[in-house]
């Protein structure tokens, strides 16, 4: 699943570590999310969307079927 996490993080001027702290996950998890190697659970996806003031669909782009 693709996402706009890196762009949104850059917009806010946060490092991966700062975003990780805000989301209460590890920096490695933020890195894996940004590179699309890990798809978050629904609660984490909601936390991410809420943190950036967006809807989940604005942050995450599902793969084409």
């Amino acid at each position: 699943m693709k996402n706009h996490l890196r762009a949104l993080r850059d917009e806010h001027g946060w490092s991966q570590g700062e975003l990780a702290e805000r989301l209460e996950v590890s920096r490695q998890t933020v890195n894996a999310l940004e590179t699309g190697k890990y798809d978050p659970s629904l609660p984490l996806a909601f936390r991410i969307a809420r943190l950036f003031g967006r809807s989940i669909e604005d942050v995450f782009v599902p793969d084409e079927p």
Partner: protein
Amino acid sequence: MKPTSPRLLALMAAASLGLGLLLPRLIPGLPDAVTGVLLGAAFGLGLAALMYWRLPSPCDTAPAALRRRYTREIAVSMSAYAVAVIVSLLLLKRADLDTPVRALVALLPVPPIALVLRAMVHYIRDVDEMQQRIELEAVSIGTALVCMVYMAGGFLQAAKVIDVPSASAMIWVFPFICAAYGVAKAVVIRRYQ
């Protein structure tokens, strides 16, 4: 010093190795199993030190405080296990123990192992969701591999191709699962890097 210090693990490995080599000279008649436990612990701790040294933080995304707590809990419970095994083996050498007492003495090392498992469960509960997934995949693969090896061993034993003492085979299940879990984790983590 890193949260889980390879130096501390190496030091514990050296202490265990030293005890394993010295005790048989200092205490005549010490059961071979005691030496075996100490040398086994030295090997395990040495391997862990090597893994922590060569596979640093990318293999483990848990916060430093959590890793420190885990290392502390594992070190305490494994030390208690080593002491319990030695005490148990020394007491079991006495021939005058009734069966219920022998059973109780033989089971002395089990509570420390329960503490090890408790520390592992606490650790997995407290890491973030990606690390939980890594742990789940690693423990599943590790357990599956050990099951396969044990089934293969069972078939070979049934066919009288090998002859492994049953007590050793049963005691080594948990250490084998831990080792396979560790190796599987180092492989699984690469998918998320």
